[in-house]
């Protein structure tokens, strides 16, 4: 079976500063993968390198066995990748409804499991805010919208960068539930989050970054075994 | 004398006034080429600088021609504001400045100077005779209109001077902000006043737009349109049939029946591929004037006083008819009444023979 995502030897720089030092990992179809690390270790940079937002200087990214390293971002996303960025990426001049409508599309297989309606059912809070502009939402509402906007593109791989940041406990739980649902429907996810408690239960595969290098990469059972080591990487 | 005669030109070669600058230069060069024999073997050197019709640059360019290029003649400009800026630098100097267009009154009025000549007109000249023409046609109530700037206001005042002196009444004077060309509101108002005639000063693109609007809104044929001649100079092709019948006064007309004019028009057309207009004539006359002065001095123009004297005494044999210079160095010339027929300015009569500008305020 071809790997869904295969990241090989990424070296990424911001100007002169070398951030990623050869990041390697892969994701199997249907898997949920966590990417952990302390602040500033390069998690977001890894995601951005995969998506081509910050082009790596060397290394390869393969999606469904296909080389996507040189492609522009939008073409990669067209291969059914969706991204919930850190900081949410709201459009200040679009209403909630428009955020969803503009993004909605069927995936490459022509399936459309997630529609605007379904997103609004999942996050009733958004239903009430339909005509608010993106930046007129509360922090948590923005987060829900960002996830909803990613879902309506019906991705194969959903990439979440700190998606539960700033969410109330109940909603956070809801989001985790949504991610579980997504996972069970066969969509792969790559999750950057702080909450190791949830991640160790939710994800099949765990990756820990320290200073732009993968220092730990294994399945859940191994994680339990070497929990102390991982926690020390994370500074818990 | 091996030194070439340096002719500096400060004219607009781009923008709204570009066409005027082009025509002036064409005329000037053509004249000097034709008169090459008179120059006593002296070569010519042209220094051409685009003023962009920006008055605030004028002193600097003028001083560049004066001090850096050390031109013998400085020709320019088209725009009155630029003329003022040039004057500031050149007035009272030895180098000769010849204005081939700008009509600003002060140039040969309060600010006149021995070394400053004008081959064109003062704003007063072309418009003043129209007052009498209007009265003769029996118009009693007239609306006047122009852009709200020096030349426009001076033209309207000159018209009003002769028109009211003869008993006419200017019922309304409309000053349009320069360079606005939205005339519809004003024309609607004129229509509601319904005067005996309308007298306007507009030039270039504004003139085209005005004449077209006047026609499109149906005023033409109902209220006669009179104007200072620039209304139909260099613009007739663009105005098309809308200009037919418009009556103007100017110191020139395309159809002036003299040999010089015919020859000038044919060779200009042949050389530059388009019809000549008043601006070309003014440039041409500037050339003639220079040539004749150089000739008179036997090619030696080093004595500036002699040069100025020679220039002041020339009679320019121009396509517009011979003219001389007044004490203030403004042309004393015929003003013709013209009307547009078949896309040409036809002479009807001489509206004022050998008209001299009153040169108010000039002490020369």
């Amino acid at each position, binding site marked *: 079976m071809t790997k869904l995502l295969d990241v090989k030897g990424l070296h990424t720089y911001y100007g002169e500063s070398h951030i990623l030092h050869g990041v390697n990992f892969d994701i199997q179809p249907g898997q949920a993968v966590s990417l952990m690390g302390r602040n500033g270790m390069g998690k977001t940079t890894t995601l951005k390198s995969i998506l081509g937002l910050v082009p790596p200087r060397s290394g390869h990214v393969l999606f469904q066995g296909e080389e996507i390293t040189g492609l522009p971002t939008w073409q990669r996303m067209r291969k059914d990748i969706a991204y919930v960025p850190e900081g949410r990426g709201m459009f200040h001049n679009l209403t909630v409804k428009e955020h969803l409508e503009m993004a909605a599309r069927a995936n490459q297989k022509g399936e459309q499991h997630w529609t605007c309606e379904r997103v609004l059912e999942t996050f009733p809070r958004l239903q009430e805010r339909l005509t608010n502009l993106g930046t007129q939402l509360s922090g948590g509402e923005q987060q829900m919208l960002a996830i909803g906007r990613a879902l309506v593109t019906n991705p194969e791989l959903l990439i979440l960068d700190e998606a539960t940041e700033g969410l109330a406990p109940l909603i956070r739980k809801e989001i985790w539930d949504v991610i579980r649902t997504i996972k069970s429907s066969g969509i792969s996810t790559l999750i950057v989050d702080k909450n190791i408690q949830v991640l160790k239960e939710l994800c099949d595969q765990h990756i820990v970054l320290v200073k732009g290098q993968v220092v730990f990469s294994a399945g859940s059972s191994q994680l339990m075994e070497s929990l102390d080591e991982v926690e020390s990487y994370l500074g818990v | 004398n091996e030194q070439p005669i340096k002719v500096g030109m400060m004219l607009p*070669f*781009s923008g709204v006034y570009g066409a005027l600058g082009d025509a002036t230069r064409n005329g000037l060069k053509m004249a000097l080429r034709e008169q090459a024999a008179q120059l006593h073997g002296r070569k010519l050197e042209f*220094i*051409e*600088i*685009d003023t962009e019709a*920006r*008055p*605030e640059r*004028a*002193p*600097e360019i003028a*001083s*560049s021609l*004066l*001090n*850096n290029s050390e031109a013998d003649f400085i020709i320019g400009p088209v725009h*009155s*504001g630029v*003329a*003022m*800026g040039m004057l*500031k*630098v050149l007035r009272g100097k030895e180098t000769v400045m010849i204005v081939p267009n700008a009509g*600003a009154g*002060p140039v040969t009025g309060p*600010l006149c100077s021995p070394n400053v000549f004008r081959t064109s007109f003062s704003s007063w000249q072309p418009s003043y005779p129209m007052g009498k023409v209007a009265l003769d046609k029996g118009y009693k109530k007239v609306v006047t209109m122009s852009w*709200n*700037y*020096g030349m426009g*206001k001076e033209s309207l005042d000159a018209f009003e001077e002769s028109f009211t002196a003869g008993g006419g009444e200017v019922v309304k004077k409309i000053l349009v*902000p*320069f360079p606005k060309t939205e005339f519809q509101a004003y024309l609607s108002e004129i229509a509601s006043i319904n005067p005996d005639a309308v007298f306007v000063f507009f030039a270039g693109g504004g003139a085209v737009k005005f004449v077209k609007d006047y026609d499109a809104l149906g005023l033409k044929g109902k209220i006669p349109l009179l104007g200072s001649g620039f209304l139909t100079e260099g613009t007739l092709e663009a105005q098309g049939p809308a200009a037919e019948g418009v009556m103007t006064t100017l110191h020139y007309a395309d159809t002036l029946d003299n040999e010089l004019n015919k020859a000038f028009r044919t060779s200009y057309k042949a050389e530059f591929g388009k019809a000549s207009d008043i601006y070309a004539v003014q440039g041409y006359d500037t050339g003639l004037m220079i040539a004749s002065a150089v000739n008179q001095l036997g090619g030696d123009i080093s004595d500036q006083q002699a040069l100025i004297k020679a220039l002041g005494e020339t009679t320019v044999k121009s396509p517009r008819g011979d003219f001389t210079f007044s004490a203030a160095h403004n042309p004393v010339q015929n003003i013709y009444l013209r009307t547009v027929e078949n896309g040409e300015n036809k002479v009807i009569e001489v509206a004022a023979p050998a008209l001299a500008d009153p040169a108010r305020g000039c002490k020369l």
Partner: protein
Amino acid sequence: MLFNKRTERIFFWVFFPLALLMPLFLAENTFFVSKLTSIMIFALFVMSLDYLVGRCGLITLGHAMFYGLGGYLFWMIAPEYEAVNFWVYTFYICMIAAAVALIIGFLVLRTSGIYMIMITLAFAQMAFYFFSDSIEFGGTDGLFIYVKPETSIFGLSFFDLDNPTHFYYLCLLSLFNTLIFFRILIRSRFGRVVDAIHENPGRTTALGYNIFVFRLMSYVIASALGAYAGYLFTLQYGFVNPSMLAWTTSGSALVMSILGGMGSIYGAILGTFVYEGLHYVLEHLTEHWMLFMGALIIAMVMVFKNGIAGSMEKLLEKRT
């Protein structure tokens, strides 16, 4: 440290000594001396704009209003045929311009961004039409000024304004002082707040600064200096024209300051000299100077990421 960048210091030590010696080389050619003088005057104006736009983030398309005002004010307040003192009138003009700027700034600084560009433009256009439409101020033909002030301080006179070379040095001194003044301003605690406001006004308010007052002060300072430049311009040829106030004048100044490198202050000198230099050379070379000028401007935007100053810094700072 007054200049915290190496490029800045290099520029300083190249430009000013050169400018100081220039008239010696150009002794016979008074035109070039006065041409350089005009460029320096305009550079001073561009510099005041650069401070506003580049340092304070207050983009205005109405700065020429003060440039023109400097000229017209002189005509208005100076007795027509009497000798007046240059320094005294400099003071008057800057003060009156500052007062005008205070009032206008009070109004325009309520807006920001593009809205501010447009409202400054609106005021400048009103002033432009005021001067072009009124006969008392010479209308579109402008005015001649016959006063040449004398420059004595306590009876000692260093400059004779009728002498182009002296006038050149006066303008050079003014430019030098303005540069130093802005550098001191930027380096100061006041400058810190100005930088902070530029980068994040909301946060600066939240920290307890009344950003309006800082902006207003900057606006007043820059406007007064703009008026001073206009005053110098007027003195050079004794001529004022409403086109000094036209938006195209503001536009050209903006172009020069962007070209030089926004916010770098010394870039204003670079930008003005490069632009005016090119203009001069091209217009003497060809009638189609506009084509080349346009193409060159386009090429320069593409090549210079942060204006000429920015690109020079990239070259020179890296090695340190």
